[in-house]
């Protein structure tokens, strides 16, 4: 499976460096290594979800309880979480770090992923969620750190899009 191990490892290390100690996740192809790293790490609490929106509540609870967390999900999982993002994370000013695998952009071969790629950034904009694209390894460290900084200074959700050029090696 050509999901980049090195990019996944870099993302995971930068997440830990930014203080993340809890990750909620629903598996998807591009996230397999990230989820495995979280599972194998004694210092990380991994919460496997049935549906992504639960992760918003879990992260909100963790934040109020003093633990930094992140959500790992596909863009379709982000789309499925919108009410929780609006009526929990935004309503209650929760600094929510969302790492979203950005399926359905150019190069996508799976027909079922192709609608999500075109709408994800528009939905983030409609929600006034600041976001950045991670397209190469040079983006990863600085953009994760900056995203965390903004999430906490603004007390709002922020999103990082894990893009094909970073995650997929063909």
């Amino acid at each position: 499976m050509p999901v980049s191990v090195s990019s996944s490892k870099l993302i995971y290390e930068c997440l830990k460096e930014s203080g993340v100690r809890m990750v909620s996740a629903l598996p998807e192809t591009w996230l397999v290594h990230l989820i495995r790293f979280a599972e194998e790490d004694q210092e990380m609490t991994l919460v496997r979800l049935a549906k992504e929106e639960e992760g918003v509540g879990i992260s909100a609870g963790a934040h109020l309880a003093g633990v930094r967390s992140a959500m790992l999900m596909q863009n379709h999982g982000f789309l499925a979480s919108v009410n929780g993002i609006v009526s929990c994370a935004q309503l209650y000013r929760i600094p929510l770090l969302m790492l979203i695998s950005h399926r359905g952009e150019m190069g996508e071969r799976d027909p079922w992923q192709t609608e999500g790629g075109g709408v994800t950034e528009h939905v983030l904009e409609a929600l006034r969620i600041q976001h950045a694209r991670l397209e190469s390894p040079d983006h990863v460290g600085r953009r994760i750190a900056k995203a965390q900084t903004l999430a906490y200074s603004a007390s709002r959700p922020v999103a990082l899009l894990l893009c094909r050029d970073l995650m997929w090696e063909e």
Partner: protein
Amino acid sequence: MRRVDAMNSVYPELERCVVVTIMGAVAAELQSLGHRPNFFYLQHAMGLASSMGLGIALSRPELTVVVFDGDGSVLMNLGGLTTLARYRPSNLVHVVFDNESLLSVGGFPTATSTGSDIAGIAAAAGVPRTATVRTVEEFRNAFADAIAAPELTTIVAKVEAVGPSAYVTDLSLLENRYQFQRYLRDVGKTSS
């Protein structure tokens, strides 16, 4: 059983817990009994109160977390029961007030009115301890047992479909949120 009487019967015990409630009647009635800084009312995001409780319980295993949920909210996040059961934090007590209706939006009947059994669903999801109670005395006993038990418990309390006259209270959402966060920050310092 009225929900407010059930909550009143365990109110003294809540002082030592961290409490997360759903919106609507549960939030308004608990506030009518007396707000405390360790109470958080999730005034929207239906279904996520139990997820917030899970996030707190996993983050702070030294605290006892109580979630006051409802049938309408649980039915919006049935998958969350499987996540609760999967991690089954022993420091979490999950109470579902089941009035078989969406009371605050006009009383429309939920699926529990036609036989869906939330305690049965929770048990089948893997929640290790479940109970369904119908009187205040049964509720108080089940709640005390759940607090003492070293296992996750879901208590379904069958309550009348009656609620407060108003749902908006004087406590602003963000005031509640920041007070609750400070409580969680400071409770660690005083107990250690």
